[in-house]
């Protein structure tokens, strides 16, 4: 699979400048963080719990305003919720009283699409993630894996420039997670999916190495960038038993230790 990020000198999509997050007046839990994400890049943030990786993702999504510093999306400072980004949550965050198709369409309403267009777009992404057949099911009728597919379809349906994923596979069993990782990579490479930039938060080094163009390693107390590893030279698909993949994983474990 060719990486969409391999095109020459893509522009910065997202830029964090001196971002810091405080708890109360004095306790700095995150930062300062300086980070740039390219257009069409698959970037992962890894680190131990308490390193602020989920906080960082919430700052990027614009649901949390950093105490200090600036977030820029396409060069413009982010003032409010980041409408050019969409989020996939570890806990799925579905509306239990809505059927699958309506859960997927929910973000389209706030973007001002007329009902017929909403349904058409929702159906497109339901088909792409392999959920067709489940349109009229309620979340409670679905396995955890299927629930997360709804979360993914809902995020992709708004055709965000940036897809943020917060530990999206960690509530799933290993076999389901495996299928979903492959699906996300297929969609990322697919010409019919508009979203080409992905920011993944994970605690799994194996997952980050299997998926990303670049991995940013965070340290805790306060959360800050310890290192970053460029993986664009690592060929895809990256089966975990390939020697190059295993070496990279080992090297990353050493960085975190």
């Amino acid at each position, binding site marked *: 699979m060719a990486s969409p990020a391999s095109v020459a000198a893509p522009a910065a999509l997202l830029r964090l400048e001196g971002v810091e997050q405080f708890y109360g007046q004095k306790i700095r839990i995150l930062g300062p963080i300086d980070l740039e994400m390219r257009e069409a890049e698959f970037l992962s943030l890894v680190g131990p719990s308490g390193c602020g990786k989920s906080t960082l993702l919430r700052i990027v999504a614009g649901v949390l305003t950093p105490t200090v510093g600036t977030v820029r999306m396409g060069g413009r400072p982010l003032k409010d919720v980041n409408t050019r980004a969409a989020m996939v949550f570890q806990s799925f965050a579905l509306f239990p009283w809505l059927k699958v198709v309506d859960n997927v369409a929910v973000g389209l309403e706030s973007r001002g699409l007329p009902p017929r267009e909403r349904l058409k777009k929702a159906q497109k992404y339901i*088909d*792409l993630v*392999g959920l*067709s*057949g*489940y349109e*009229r*099911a*309620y979340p409670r*009728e*679905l*396995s*955890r*894996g*299927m629930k997360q597919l709804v979360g993914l379809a809902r995020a992709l349906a708004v055709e965000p420039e940036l897809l943020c994923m917060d530990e999206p596979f960690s509530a*799933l*069993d*290993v*076999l*389901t*997670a*495996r*299928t*979903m990782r*492959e699906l996300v990579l*297929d969609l990322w490479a697919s010409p019919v999916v508009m979203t080409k930039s992905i920011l993944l938060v994970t605690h799994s080094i194996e997952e980050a190495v299997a998926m990303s163009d670049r991995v940013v390693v965070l340290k805790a107390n306060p959360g800050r960038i310890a290192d970053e590893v460029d993986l664009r030279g690592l060929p895809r698909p990256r*089966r975990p038993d390939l020697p190059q993949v295993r070496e990279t994983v080992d090297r990353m474990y050493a960085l975190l230790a």
Partner: protein
Amino acid sequence: MAETLQPLPHAPIGMVLGLLEHLKDTPGGKEDLYKLGGPLGYELDDLLPVTEAAKRLGLVRIAAGDIELTAEGRALAAAEEPERKQRMGRCLRKLSLIAEIRRAVERAAGGRASRTLFLERLQEGFSEAEAERQLSTALDWARYGEVFDFDPDAEEFFLPPA
């Protein structure tokens, strides 16, 4: 029906697909069944419903302690959506419970069949809880393969739109 009906193993369809992908990437396409749990982080017990489901669907062969993909299993693992779904749909229709529900829906006037009817018939052979689980599993699989759908408000099975 209940006498001749083979119970479905309770495995989410997503795990069955994950198993096929794992085997597809296993060198030689074959794995010692007792080693399968290890690399996936499972106890063998937890995997048995998944391997059993794949076997009943004709997607894997289990012999002499080895598990390997059948030709159909290989084709399905290599396929992308919607082909994957269509292939799974064909495999699902070979399972008695799923085939029965599909036939009932096709024959019913108005294209709808009551869930209660199947629940009662399943209870001739299973406990009420198990009958419920059988229908849940059948529905999870059938929805994936688009063999039939379910309207939870009316409690009726129906055919998914073509």
